[in-house]
Protein backbone atom coordinates (compact mmCIF):
# COMPACT_ATOMS: atom_id res chain seq x y z
CA UNK A 1 0.00 0.00 0.00
CA UNK A 2 2.97 2.34 0.19
CA UNK A 3 3.09 4.83 -2.63
CA UNK A 4 6.46 6.53 -2.74
CA UNK A 5 4.92 9.93 -3.39
CA UNK A 6 2.50 9.91 -0.42
CA UNK A 7 2.58 13.16 1.57
CA UNK A 8 1.77 11.27 4.75
CA UNK A 9 1.59 7.61 5.66
CA UNK A 10 0.22 6.50 9.01
CA UNK A 11 0.59 2.77 9.62
CA UNK A 12 -1.04 1.00 12.56
CA UNK A 13 -0.21 3.90 14.86
CA UNK A 14 -0.87 3.23 18.54
CA UNK A 15 -0.55 5.78 21.35
CA UNK A 16 -1.13 5.24 25.05
CA UNK A 17 -1.31 8.16 27.45
CA UNK A 18 -1.57 7.75 31.20
CA UNK A 19 -1.96 4.00 30.72
CA UNK A 20 -5.01 4.45 28.49
CA UNK A 21 -5.04 3.59 24.78
CA UNK A 22 -5.81 6.85 22.94
CA UNK A 23 -5.05 5.77 19.36
CA UNK A 24 -5.55 2.16 18.26
CA UNK A 25 -3.92 0.99 15.05
CA UNK A 26 -4.75 4.08 13.06
CA UNK A 27 -3.82 3.71 9.38
CA UNK A 28 -4.33 6.01 6.39
CA UNK A 29 -2.45 7.74 3.62
CA UNK A 30 -2.58 11.22 2.10
CA UNK A 31 -1.53 12.05 -1.46
CA UNK A 32 0.14 15.40 -2.20
CA UNK A 33 -2.40 18.21 -2.49
CA UNK A 34 -5.19 16.14 -0.97
CA UNK A 35 -7.70 17.86 1.31
CA UNK A 36 -8.64 15.58 4.17
CA UNK A 37 -10.99 16.05 7.12
CA UNK A 38 -10.12 14.41 10.44
CA UNK A 39 -13.53 13.99 12.01
CA UNK A 40 -14.42 12.81 15.50
CA UNK A 41 -16.26 13.94 18.60
CA UNK A 42 -14.58 15.47 21.68
CA UNK A 43 -11.95 13.18 23.14
CA UNK A 44 -11.84 10.85 20.14
CA UNK A 45 -8.08 11.48 19.68
CA UNK A 46 -7.85 14.08 16.90
CA UNK A 47 -5.35 16.34 18.66
CA UNK A 48 -3.31 13.35 19.79
CA UNK A 49 -3.08 12.07 16.22
CA UNK A 50 -1.96 15.44 14.86
CA UNK A 51 0.63 15.79 17.63
CA UNK A 52 1.88 12.30 16.90
CA UNK A 53 2.37 13.24 13.25
CA UNK A 54 4.38 16.28 14.42
CA UNK A 55 6.52 14.06 16.63
CA UNK A 56 5.31 15.76 19.85
CA UNK A 57 3.77 12.49 21.05
CA UNK A 58 5.67 9.20 20.79
CA UNK A 59 4.04 6.23 19.14
CA UNK A 60 3.92 3.07 21.19
CA UNK A 61 3.84 1.06 18.01
CA UNK A 62 3.30 1.61 14.32
CA UNK A 63 4.82 4.16 12.03
CA UNK A 64 4.25 7.65 10.67
CA UNK A 65 6.16 8.72 7.58
CA UNK A 66 6.25 12.04 5.75
CA UNK A 67 7.02 12.60 2.08
CA UNK A 68 10.78 12.31 2.46
CA UNK A 69 10.75 9.78 5.27
CA UNK A 70 11.55 12.35 7.96
CA UNK A 71 9.34 13.52 10.79
CA UNK A 72 8.34 17.14 11.49
CA UNK A 73 10.79 19.92 10.74
CA UNK A 74 10.52 22.01 7.63
CA UNK A 75 7.96 19.96 5.77
CA UNK A 76 5.01 20.32 8.09
CA UNK A 77 2.93 23.41 8.80
CA UNK A 78 0.83 23.39 11.97
CA UNK A 79 -2.00 25.44 13.42
CA UNK A 80 -2.71 24.28 16.99
CA UNK A 81 -6.15 24.06 18.60
CA UNK A 82 -7.35 26.88 20.86
CA UNK A 83 -4.27 28.99 20.38
CA UNK A 84 -4.58 32.29 22.21
CA UNK A 85 -2.22 34.97 20.95
CA UNK A 86 -1.08 37.28 23.75
CA UNK A 87 -2.25 40.86 23.15
CA UNK A 88 0.84 42.00 25.06
CA UNK A 89 3.21 40.85 22.31
CA UNK A 90 4.37 43.68 20.03
CA UNK A 91 3.90 41.55 16.92
CA UNK A 92 1.94 42.60 13.86
CA UNK A 93 0.19 40.01 11.71
CA UNK A 94 3.02 40.58 9.25
CA UNK A 95 5.65 39.69 11.88
CA UNK A 96 3.85 36.45 12.73
CA UNK A 97 3.91 35.38 9.08
CA UNK A 98 7.60 36.30 8.85
CA UNK A 99 8.28 34.15 11.93
CA UNK A 100 6.64 31.28 10.07
CA UNK A 101 9.19 31.71 7.32
CA UNK A 102 12.41 31.80 9.35
CA UNK A 103 11.53 32.13 13.05
CA UNK A 104 13.73 29.20 14.01
CA UNK A 105 16.89 30.80 12.58
CA UNK A 106 19.37 32.39 14.93
CA UNK A 107 19.95 36.13 15.14
CA UNK A 108 17.71 38.99 14.06
CA UNK A 109 16.37 38.96 10.51
CA UNK A 110 18.22 41.21 8.12
CA UNK A 111 15.97 43.40 6.01
CA UNK A 112 15.37 41.55 2.76
CA UNK A 113 13.22 42.50 -0.20
CA UNK A 114 12.59 38.86 -1.08
CA UNK A 115 11.48 37.98 2.45
CA UNK A 116 9.12 40.97 2.58
CA UNK A 117 7.63 39.95 -0.77
CA UNK A 118 7.08 36.36 0.34
CA UNK A 119 5.30 37.59 3.47
CA UNK A 120 3.21 40.09 1.51
CA UNK A 121 2.20 37.44 -0.99
CA UNK A 122 1.13 35.06 1.78
CA UNK A 123 -0.88 37.80 3.55
CA UNK A 124 -2.62 38.43 0.25
CA UNK A 125 -3.28 34.71 -0.28
CA UNK A 126 -5.17 34.40 3.01
CA UNK A 127 -6.88 37.77 2.70
CA UNK A 128 -5.12 39.31 5.67
CA UNK A 129 -3.77 42.47 4.04
CA UNK A 130 -6.38 44.70 5.66
CA UNK A 131 -5.09 43.92 9.16
CA UNK A 132 -1.48 43.07 8.36
CA UNK A 133 -0.09 45.93 10.45
CA UNK A 134 -2.25 45.46 13.52
CA UNK A 135 -1.16 43.82 16.75
CA UNK A 136 -1.98 40.17 16.21
CA UNK A 137 -3.24 39.54 19.76
CA UNK A 138 -5.93 42.18 19.28
CA UNK A 139 -7.38 40.63 16.10
CA UNK A 140 -10.62 38.65 16.11
CA UNK A 141 -10.57 34.85 16.29
CA UNK A 142 -11.26 34.47 12.58
CA UNK A 143 -8.61 37.02 11.64
CA UNK A 144 -6.04 35.29 13.87
CA UNK A 145 -6.94 32.00 12.22
CA UNK A 146 -6.08 33.44 8.81
CA UNK A 147 -2.79 34.84 10.09
CA UNK A 148 -1.88 31.46 11.60
CA UNK A 149 -2.70 29.68 8.34
CA UNK A 150 -0.37 32.12 6.58
CA UNK A 151 2.28 31.48 9.26
CA UNK A 152 2.01 27.74 8.65
CA UNK A 153 1.94 27.93 4.85
CA UNK A 154 4.61 30.51 4.14
CA UNK A 155 7.40 27.92 4.25
CA UNK A 156 5.59 25.98 1.53
CA UNK A 157 5.20 22.79 3.60
CA UNK A 158 4.21 19.54 1.89
CA UNK A 159 1.74 18.83 4.68
CA UNK A 160 -0.47 21.24 6.62
CA UNK A 161 -2.02 20.14 9.92
CA UNK A 162 -4.87 22.24 11.29
CA UNK A 163 -6.45 21.43 14.64
CA UNK A 164 -10.09 22.59 14.83
CA UNK A 165 -9.54 25.70 12.71
CA UNK A 166 -13.31 26.12 12.28
CA UNK A 167 -14.20 26.28 15.98
CA UNK A 168 -15.26 29.83 16.91
CA UNK A 169 -16.01 30.82 13.33
CA UNK A 170 -19.43 31.96 12.15
CA UNK A 171 -21.12 30.26 9.18
CA UNK A 172 -19.79 32.69 6.63
CA UNK A 173 -16.18 32.67 7.90
CA UNK A 174 -16.31 28.87 8.08
CA UNK A 175 -17.24 28.62 4.42
CA UNK A 176 -14.59 31.20 3.51
CA UNK A 177 -11.80 29.47 5.42
CA UNK A 178 -12.70 26.04 4.01
CA UNK A 179 -12.72 27.42 0.46
CA UNK A 180 -9.44 29.23 1.14
CA UNK A 181 -7.69 26.15 2.53
CA UNK A 182 -8.91 24.01 -0.30
CA UNK A 183 -7.69 26.54 -2.88
CA UNK A 184 -4.29 26.95 -1.17
CA UNK A 185 -3.78 23.20 -0.88
CA UNK A 186 -4.23 22.97 -4.65
CA UNK A 187 -2.06 26.00 -5.43
CA UNK A 188 0.77 25.05 -3.10
CA UNK A 189 0.50 21.29 -3.63
CA UNK A 190 0.25 20.81 0.15
CA UNK A 191 -1.77 17.96 1.60
CA UNK A 192 -4.13 19.29 4.28
CA UNK A 193 -5.30 17.34 7.31
CA UNK A 194 -7.92 19.35 9.17
CA UNK A 195 -9.64 18.24 12.36
CA UNK A 196 -13.26 19.10 13.12
CA UNK A 197 -16.06 17.68 15.22
CA UNK A 198 -18.66 18.60 12.61
CA UNK A 199 -18.06 17.24 9.11
CA UNK A 200 -20.83 19.22 7.41
CA UNK A 201 -18.94 22.38 6.44
CA UNK A 202 -16.19 20.15 4.99
CA UNK A 203 -18.33 17.74 2.99
CA UNK A 204 -18.26 19.73 -0.26
CA UNK A 205 -14.47 20.24 -0.04
CA UNK A 206 -13.05 16.97 1.31
CA UNK A 207 -11.19 14.60 -1.02
CA UNK A 208 -10.91 12.16 1.81
CA UNK A 209 -12.09 11.68 5.37
CA UNK A 210 -10.44 10.08 8.38
CA UNK A 211 -13.18 9.31 10.89
CA UNK A 212 -12.04 8.74 14.48
CA UNK A 213 -14.11 7.14 17.22
CA UNK A 214 -12.62 6.21 20.60
CA UNK A 215 -9.15 6.16 19.05
CA UNK A 216 -9.93 3.89 16.08
CA UNK A 217 -10.14 5.22 12.57
CA UNK A 218 -11.62 4.48 9.17
CA UNK A 219 -10.42 6.39 6.14
CA UNK A 220 -11.60 6.82 2.60
CA UNK A 221 -13.86 8.94 0.46
CA UNK A 222 -16.68 10.55 2.43
CA UNK A 223 -19.41 8.63 0.62
CA UNK A 224 -17.64 5.33 1.41
CA UNK A 225 -17.01 6.11 5.07
CA UNK A 226 -20.02 8.07 6.27
CA UNK A 227 -22.42 5.12 6.06
CA UNK A 228 -24.44 3.36 8.69
CA UNK A 229 -22.65 -0.03 8.30
CA UNK A 230 -19.12 1.41 8.25
CA UNK A 231 -19.51 3.73 11.21
CA UNK A 232 -21.47 1.17 13.25
CA UNK A 233 -18.54 -1.20 12.89
CA UNK A 234 -16.11 1.55 13.87
CA UNK A 235 -18.06 2.52 16.97
CA UNK A 236 -18.71 -1.10 17.90
CA UNK A 237 -22.42 -0.44 18.31
CA UNK A 238 -25.21 0.55 15.99
CA UNK A 239 -25.24 4.16 14.85
CA UNK A 240 -27.39 5.75 12.17
CA UNK A 241 -26.14 8.13 9.53
CA UNK A 242 -29.07 10.46 9.14
CA UNK A 243 -29.46 13.04 6.37
CA UNK A 244 -31.80 15.89 7.15
CA UNK A 245 -32.10 19.29 5.50
CA UNK A 246 -28.86 18.73 3.65
CA UNK A 247 -26.93 17.94 6.84
CA UNK A 248 -25.35 14.66 7.82
CA UNK A 249 -25.79 13.66 11.43
CA UNK A 250 -24.38 10.53 13.07
CA UNK A 251 -26.49 9.34 15.97
CA UNK A 252 -26.63 6.34 18.27
CA UNK A 253 -29.57 4.14 17.29
CA UNK A 254 -31.90 4.71 20.22
CA UNK A 255 -31.52 8.48 19.92
CA UNK A 256 -31.93 8.65 16.17
CA UNK A 257 -35.71 8.92 16.04
CA UNK A 258 -35.72 11.71 18.60
CA UNK A 259 -32.94 13.54 16.78
CA UNK A 260 -34.64 13.18 13.43
CA UNK A 261 -37.76 14.76 14.89
CA UNK A 262 -35.79 17.50 16.64
CA UNK A 263 -33.78 18.41 13.55
CA UNK A 264 -36.96 18.49 11.51
CA UNK A 265 -38.45 20.98 13.99
CA UNK A 266 -35.31 23.11 14.22
CA UNK A 267 -32.94 22.89 11.25
CA UNK A 268 -29.89 24.33 13.04
CA UNK A 269 -29.99 21.72 15.76
CA UNK A 270 -27.02 19.37 15.55
CA UNK A 271 -26.30 16.17 17.35
CA UNK A 272 -23.37 13.89 17.84
CA UNK A 273 -22.73 10.39 18.96
CA UNK A 274 -22.46 9.96 22.75
Amino acid at each position, binding site marked *: MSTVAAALTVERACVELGGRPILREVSFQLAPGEFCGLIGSNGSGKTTLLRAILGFVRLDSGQIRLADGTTA*GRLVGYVPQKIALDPGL*PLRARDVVALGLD*GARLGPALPSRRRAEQVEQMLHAVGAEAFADQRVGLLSGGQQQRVLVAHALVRRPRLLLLDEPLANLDVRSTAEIVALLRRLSREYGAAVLLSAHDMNPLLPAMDRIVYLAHGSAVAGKAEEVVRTEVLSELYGYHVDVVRVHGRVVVVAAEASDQIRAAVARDPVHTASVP
Partner: protein
Amino acid sequence: MLMSVPSNPGFWVNEPVRVALTVGAGAALVCAVVGCATVMRRQAFAGHALADVSSAGGSAAYLLGLNPLLGFLGMAAAVAVVMEWADMREVRERDLLTGVVLGAGLGLTALLLYFDATMGSVSGAAMTVLFGSMFTIPATIVPVALAVAGAALVASAIIYRPLLLSALAADLARAQGLRVRAVTLTHAVTLALAVSLAAMTVGAILATALLIGPAAAALRLARRPFEALVLAALIGLGATWGGIALAYESFYWTPGRGWPVSFFIVILIFVAYLLSSWAATRRGARRGAALYGCEGA
Protein backbone atom coordinates in the same frame (compact mmCIF):
# COMPACT_ATOMS: atom_id res chain seq x y z
CA MET B 1 18.11 71.48 38.58
CA LEU B 2 18.88 68.92 35.92
CA MET B 3 20.05 71.72 33.63
CA SER B 4 22.78 72.71 36.03
CA VAL B 5 24.41 69.27 35.92
CA PRO B 6 26.30 69.43 32.61
CA SER B 7 27.47 72.93 33.52
CA ASN B 8 28.88 71.59 36.75
CA PRO B 9 32.37 70.47 35.79
CA GLY B 10 32.66 68.20 38.81
CA PHE B 11 30.03 65.84 37.41
CA TRP B 12 31.90 64.65 34.35
CA VAL B 13 35.42 64.43 35.81
CA ASN B 14 34.32 62.77 39.04
CA GLU B 15 35.60 59.17 39.03
CA PRO B 16 32.71 57.57 41.00
CA VAL B 17 30.24 59.33 38.70
CA ARG B 18 31.99 58.00 35.61
CA VAL B 19 31.96 54.47 37.01
CA ALA B 20 28.27 54.83 37.88
CA LEU B 21 27.42 56.11 34.40
CA THR B 22 29.30 53.26 32.72
CA VAL B 23 28.02 50.38 34.85
CA GLY B 24 24.55 51.93 34.88
CA ALA B 25 24.48 52.16 31.09
CA GLY B 26 25.49 48.51 30.74
CA ALA B 27 22.86 47.43 33.24
CA ALA B 28 20.14 49.55 31.61
CA LEU B 29 20.84 48.26 28.09
CA VAL B 30 20.99 44.60 29.09
CA CYS B 31 17.90 44.91 31.29
CA ALA B 32 15.99 46.56 28.46
CA VAL B 33 16.70 43.74 26.02
CA VAL B 34 16.42 40.83 28.46
CA GLY B 35 13.47 42.51 30.20
CA CYS B 36 11.46 42.63 26.97
CA ALA B 37 12.05 38.90 26.45
CA THR B 38 11.15 38.19 30.07
CA VAL B 39 7.90 40.16 29.97
CA MET B 40 6.95 38.60 26.62
CA ARG B 41 7.50 35.14 28.13
CA ARG B 42 5.36 36.23 31.11
CA GLN B 43 8.21 35.57 33.51
CA ALA B 44 8.28 38.87 35.37
CA PHE B 45 7.80 37.11 38.69
CA ALA B 46 10.63 34.67 38.00
CA GLY B 47 12.85 37.63 37.14
CA HIS B 48 11.95 39.34 40.38
CA ALA B 49 12.61 36.20 42.42
CA LEU B 50 15.96 35.70 40.72
CA ALA B 51 16.99 39.26 41.57
CA ASP B 52 15.98 38.89 45.21
CA VAL B 53 17.80 35.58 45.54
CA SER B 54 20.95 37.02 43.97
CA SER B 55 21.27 39.20 47.10
CA ALA B 56 22.53 36.11 48.95
CA GLY B 57 25.45 35.88 46.50
CA GLY B 58 26.11 39.60 46.80
CA SER B 59 26.21 39.55 50.59
CA ALA B 60 28.43 36.45 50.58
CA ALA B 61 30.84 38.30 48.29
CA TYR B 62 31.03 41.24 50.70
CA LEU B 63 31.67 38.85 53.57
CA LEU B 64 34.49 37.10 51.69
CA GLY B 65 35.88 40.26 50.14
CA LEU B 66 35.13 39.11 46.58
CA ASN B 67 33.87 41.04 43.59
CA PRO B 68 30.18 41.62 44.46
CA LEU B 69 29.09 41.47 40.80
CA LEU B 70 30.42 37.91 40.58
CA GLY B 71 28.61 37.14 43.84
CA PHE B 72 25.26 38.33 42.47
CA LEU B 73 25.94 36.56 39.18
CA GLY B 74 26.92 33.20 40.69
CA MET B 75 23.81 32.99 42.83
CA ALA B 76 21.46 34.21 40.06
CA ALA B 77 22.91 31.80 37.50
CA ALA B 78 22.69 28.80 39.84
CA VAL B 79 19.06 29.51 40.72
CA ALA B 80 18.12 30.29 37.11
CA VAL B 81 19.40 26.91 35.99
CA VAL B 82 17.58 25.13 38.83
CA MET B 83 14.31 26.89 37.97
CA GLU B 84 14.75 26.05 34.31
CA TRP B 85 15.32 22.42 35.28
CA ALA B 86 12.12 22.48 37.36
CA ASP B 87 10.32 23.86 34.33
CA MET B 88 11.74 21.08 32.20
CA ARG B 89 10.47 18.48 34.63
CA GLU B 90 7.10 20.22 34.31
CA VAL B 91 6.87 20.86 37.98
CA ARG B 92 3.33 22.06 38.59
CA GLU B 93 2.63 25.37 40.27
CA ARG B 94 5.77 27.04 39.09
CA ASP B 95 4.84 30.30 40.81
CA LEU B 96 4.62 28.57 44.18
CA LEU B 97 8.05 26.99 43.71
CA THR B 98 9.43 30.38 42.66
CA GLY B 99 7.94 31.97 45.76
CA VAL B 100 9.42 29.35 48.06
CA VAL B 101 12.88 29.69 46.47
CA LEU B 102 12.62 33.47 46.78
CA GLY B 103 11.83 33.16 50.49
CA ALA B 104 14.71 30.77 51.14
CA GLY B 105 17.14 33.00 49.23
CA LEU B 106 16.19 36.11 51.18
CA GLY B 107 16.49 34.15 54.42
CA LEU B 108 20.06 33.25 53.49
CA THR B 109 20.68 36.91 52.70
CA ALA B 110 19.44 37.89 56.16
CA LEU B 111 21.98 35.55 57.76
CA LEU B 112 24.89 36.66 55.57
CA LEU B 113 24.10 40.36 56.06
CA TYR B 114 24.00 39.76 59.81
CA PHE B 115 27.51 38.30 59.60
CA ASP B 116 28.54 41.24 57.39
CA ALA B 117 27.29 43.68 60.00
CA THR B 118 28.83 41.87 62.97
CA MET B 119 32.20 40.76 61.61
CA GLY B 120 32.58 42.08 58.07
CA SER B 121 34.95 44.87 57.18
CA VAL B 122 32.56 46.72 54.86
CA SER B 123 30.13 49.05 56.53
CA GLY B 124 26.66 49.45 55.09
CA ALA B 125 26.77 46.19 53.13
CA ALA B 126 23.06 45.62 53.72
CA MET B 127 22.03 48.91 52.11
CA THR B 128 24.42 48.37 49.22
CA VAL B 129 23.36 44.79 48.49
CA LEU B 130 19.63 45.37 48.82
CA PHE B 131 19.20 48.91 47.50
CA GLY B 132 22.40 49.68 45.63
CA SER B 133 24.97 52.41 46.06
CA MET B 134 26.14 53.51 42.65
CA PHE B 135 28.68 56.11 43.78
CA THR B 136 30.60 53.49 45.78
CA ILE B 137 30.99 50.95 42.98
CA PRO B 138 34.73 50.15 42.80
CA ALA B 139 36.32 51.02 39.46
CA THR B 140 37.74 47.50 39.21
CA ILE B 141 34.22 46.27 38.47
CA VAL B 142 33.92 48.18 35.20
CA PRO B 143 35.69 45.67 32.92
CA VAL B 144 33.82 42.74 34.48
CA ALA B 145 30.50 44.57 34.15
CA LEU B 146 31.16 45.40 30.50
CA ALA B 147 32.12 41.78 29.76
CA VAL B 148 28.93 40.52 31.44
CA ALA B 149 26.86 43.08 29.53
CA GLY B 150 28.51 42.17 26.24
CA ALA B 151 27.91 38.45 26.77
CA ALA B 152 24.25 39.05 27.64
CA LEU B 153 23.67 41.23 24.56
CA VAL B 154 25.36 38.76 22.21
CA ALA B 155 23.37 35.82 23.61
CA SER B 156 20.14 37.83 23.38
CA ALA B 157 20.86 38.70 19.76
CA ILE B 158 21.52 35.05 18.91
CA ILE B 159 18.18 33.87 20.29
CA TYR B 160 16.26 36.91 19.03
CA ARG B 161 14.00 35.20 16.48
CA PRO B 162 13.64 31.81 18.21
CA LEU B 163 12.62 33.56 21.42
CA LEU B 164 9.96 35.64 19.65
CA LEU B 165 8.61 32.49 18.01
CA SER B 166 8.56 30.57 21.32
CA ALA B 167 6.85 33.51 23.04
CA LEU B 168 4.19 33.48 20.32
CA ALA B 169 3.47 29.78 20.98
CA ALA B 170 5.87 27.04 21.99
CA ASP B 171 4.06 24.51 19.77
CA LEU B 172 4.53 26.70 16.70
CA ALA B 173 8.25 26.82 17.48
CA ARG B 174 8.45 23.05 17.96
CA ALA B 175 6.60 22.49 14.69
CA GLN B 176 9.47 24.31 12.95
CA GLY B 177 11.91 21.89 14.52
CA LEU B 178 13.17 24.45 17.04
CA ARG B 179 14.65 23.11 20.26
CA VAL B 180 12.61 25.31 22.56
CA ARG B 181 14.50 24.06 25.65
CA ALA B 182 17.80 25.36 24.35
CA VAL B 183 16.21 28.75 23.75
CA THR B 184 14.60 29.02 27.18
CA LEU B 185 17.80 27.86 28.88
CA THR B 186 19.82 30.51 27.03
CA HIS B 187 17.23 33.09 28.01
CA ALA B 188 17.48 31.98 31.65
CA VAL B 189 21.24 32.57 31.55
CA THR B 190 20.82 36.05 30.02
CA LEU B 191 18.26 36.74 32.74
CA ALA B 192 20.83 35.85 35.40
CA LEU B 193 23.38 38.17 33.74
CA ALA B 194 20.86 41.02 33.52
CA VAL B 195 19.70 40.59 37.09
CA SER B 196 23.24 40.61 38.47
CA LEU B 197 24.03 43.86 36.62
CA ALA B 198 20.80 45.41 37.88
CA ALA B 199 21.52 44.27 41.44
CA MET B 200 24.95 45.91 41.17
CA THR B 201 23.38 49.25 40.22
CA VAL B 202 20.01 49.64 41.95
CA GLY B 203 20.38 46.76 44.43
CA ALA B 204 18.90 43.28 44.47
CA ILE B 205 15.49 44.34 45.77
CA LEU B 206 15.02 47.12 43.22
CA ALA B 207 16.53 45.17 40.30
CA THR B 208 13.04 44.22 39.09
CA ALA B 209 12.27 47.88 38.51
CA LEU B 210 15.12 48.20 36.03
CA LEU B 211 14.43 44.80 34.45
CA ILE B 212 10.64 44.94 34.12
CA GLY B 213 9.72 48.64 34.21
CA PRO B 214 11.27 49.93 30.95
CA ALA B 215 10.32 46.72 29.12
CA ALA B 216 6.71 46.85 30.28
CA ALA B 217 6.41 50.50 29.28
CA ALA B 218 8.01 49.86 25.88
CA LEU B 219 5.90 46.79 25.10
CA ARG B 220 2.71 48.79 25.63
CA LEU B 221 3.73 51.36 23.04
CA ALA B 222 5.83 49.53 20.47
CA ARG B 223 4.27 48.33 17.24
CA ARG B 224 7.01 45.83 16.44
CA PRO B 225 9.61 43.90 18.44
CA PHE B 226 12.69 45.91 17.53
CA GLU B 227 10.89 49.14 18.35
CA ALA B 228 10.19 47.73 21.84
CA LEU B 229 13.90 47.04 22.41
CA VAL B 230 14.94 50.54 21.35
CA LEU B 231 12.23 52.18 23.43
CA ALA B 232 13.04 50.08 26.51
CA ALA B 233 16.74 50.90 26.12
CA LEU B 234 15.99 54.64 25.89
CA ILE B 235 13.73 54.57 28.95
CA GLY B 236 16.22 52.49 30.97
CA LEU B 237 19.20 54.58 29.97
CA GLY B 238 17.32 57.85 30.48
CA ALA B 239 16.15 56.80 33.94
CA THR B 240 19.58 55.52 34.99
CA TRP B 241 21.60 58.52 33.83
CA GLY B 242 18.86 60.92 34.92
CA GLY B 243 18.83 59.27 38.32
CA ILE B 244 22.60 59.57 38.66
CA ALA B 245 22.45 63.25 37.69
CA LEU B 246 19.65 63.99 40.14
CA ALA B 247 21.42 62.13 42.94
CA TYR B 248 24.58 64.15 42.25
CA GLU B 249 22.51 67.32 42.42
CA SER B 250 20.91 66.22 45.66
CA PHE B 251 24.24 66.72 47.44
CA TYR B 252 23.45 70.43 47.12
CA TRP B 253 19.85 70.13 48.34
CA THR B 254 20.74 68.63 51.69
CA PRO B 255 24.36 69.68 52.06
CA GLY B 256 26.76 66.85 52.74
CA ARG B 257 24.16 64.11 52.34
CA GLY B 258 23.14 63.00 48.85
CA TRP B 259 19.96 61.05 48.25
CA PRO B 260 20.23 57.44 47.03
CA VAL B 261 20.60 57.07 43.26
CA SER B 262 18.31 54.05 43.26
CA PHE B 263 15.43 56.18 44.50
CA PHE B 264 15.67 58.52 41.53
CA ILE B 265 16.12 55.74 38.96
CA VAL B 266 13.11 53.82 40.20
CA ILE B 267 10.94 56.94 40.35
CA LEU B 268 11.91 57.94 36.80
CA ILE B 269 11.06 54.44 35.54
CA PHE B 270 7.73 54.62 37.33
CA VAL B 271 6.94 57.96 35.69
CA ALA B 272 7.90 56.53 32.27
CA TYR B 273 5.55 53.61 32.86
CA LEU B 274 2.67 55.93 33.80
CA LEU B 275 3.30 58.06 30.71
CA SER B 276 3.39 55.03 28.43
CA SER B 277 0.14 53.69 29.89
CA TRP B 278 -1.46 57.05 29.33
CA ALA B 279 -0.17 57.21 25.74
CA ALA B 280 -1.23 53.64 24.98
CA THR B 281 -4.72 54.24 26.37
CA ARG B 282 -5.07 57.44 24.38
CA ARG B 283 -3.96 55.70 21.20
CA GLY B 284 -6.37 52.83 21.83
CA ALA B 285 -9.21 55.29 22.34
CA ARG B 286 -8.32 57.15 19.17
CA ARG B 287 -8.18 53.92 17.15
CA GLY B 288 -11.54 52.87 18.63
CA ALA B 289 -13.06 56.21 17.67
CA ALA B 290 -11.71 55.91 14.13
CA LEU B 291 -13.13 52.41 13.82
CA TYR B 292 -16.49 53.55 15.11
CA GLY B 293 -16.50 56.46 12.68
CA CYS B 294 -15.74 54.10 9.77
CA GLU B 295 -18.49 51.69 10.66
CA GLY B 296 -20.97 54.49 11.16
CA ALA B 297 -20.24 55.95 7.76
